């Protein structure tokens, strides 16, 4: 039986936080433009 990958231990919550922070940093440094609401 294979070992679970490190990704396996990351919860949905943590993924959501990581994605949100990545997006925020991209916006902060001008690398991501958002579609106006």
């Amino acid at each position, binding site marked *: 039986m*294979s070992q*679970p*990958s490190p*990704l*396996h*231990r*990351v*919860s*949905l*919550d*943590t*993924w*959501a*936080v990581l*994605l*949100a*922070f990545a*997006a*925020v940093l991209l*916006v*902060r440094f001008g690398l*991501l*433009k*958002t*579609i*106006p*609401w």
Partner: protein
Amino acid sequence: MASSAVRTSVPVAPQTAPSETNAPARAAGLIPGILLLAVVGYAGKFIEHFIATYGKTHHLVLPNIEYVLWAILIGLAISNTIGVPAIFRSGVATYEFWLKAGIVLLGARFLLGDVRRLGGVSLILIAIELALALTFMTYLGRAFKLKPKLVTLLAVGSSICGVSAIIAAQGAIDADEEDSSYAIAAILLLGAISLFLFPLVGHVLHLSDHAYGLWTGLAVDNTAEATAAGALYSDAAGKIAVLAKTCRNATIGFIVLGYAIYWGSKGQAEQVKNKGAFLWKKFPKFVLGFLLISLLATVGFFTKPQLAAVGNLSRWAFLLTFAGVGLRTNLRELSKQGARPFIVGAVGEIVIAVITLGLVFGADHLFHL
């Protein structure tokens, strides 16, 4: 049967990748469902805009119905008529992921001082709500002769945060999967009803955005439904509802720990060895993300246009969530779950809604929300 019915109507978002090798394939499998969320959500936005434009050009006074309601109704129509085809299901199940990302991003629209003030008021009300709701639901469940662990799950689900709390408690108290299916079905069905009732009551009582948002955050169980019910009233009410609900979510670890210790002491669940690790595991991490973004916004890490852009991202994430709320709700499947847990849940919800409304009126009077 019961649990399979809930499984089909409550697809749980993939928590993790099973292995690195098939992770890209799994990610690709999510795309059709995410696109469906975007199409349904955007259709809701289009209808709202269309009605507003039509009213303006034809000089008609038409009701301004938020896109949230349209997105949910379109989703409900699909899931309760043709059903959500299998190819879309895993992607649709990501609505909860977008909800949490949206909440973290929403932190940019709050200064930490507001969070402290409103969060402080919310926490006081939440402590009162938790004590009353847990006690009342426990007595009500016993009066209806429900199984003790089902009573615990219903009490946790209706007092803290719906499905997440039930899933967290199920593992901690070794409850049957069938019991958690009953509890989840009852909470989801009641959440769907709340979506339509809460805004109506709010308008009838002429509640302010703050008071309504706080009430929704305190009384509606599932985070997605609380966010949607708040946004259905107004953008400002949606913000406050998310803040109050996030405070409520933050208590999940403590309550589940209490129940785990209780059932462990009775020899009906595993003993909790490391309480700190248990609390950290059950603590919703998106609450920390929300606070951190709010801190960054407070210390001036972002310019004004950047803050607006992050706020937009949050709104787009919520658009996907609201579409998912409709698409994952299969009323026929949920209603198959048995009347007694639903009746206990419904009576409990009505009582909790009335109590929290009283608390909000009191807080409004004291703190001028």
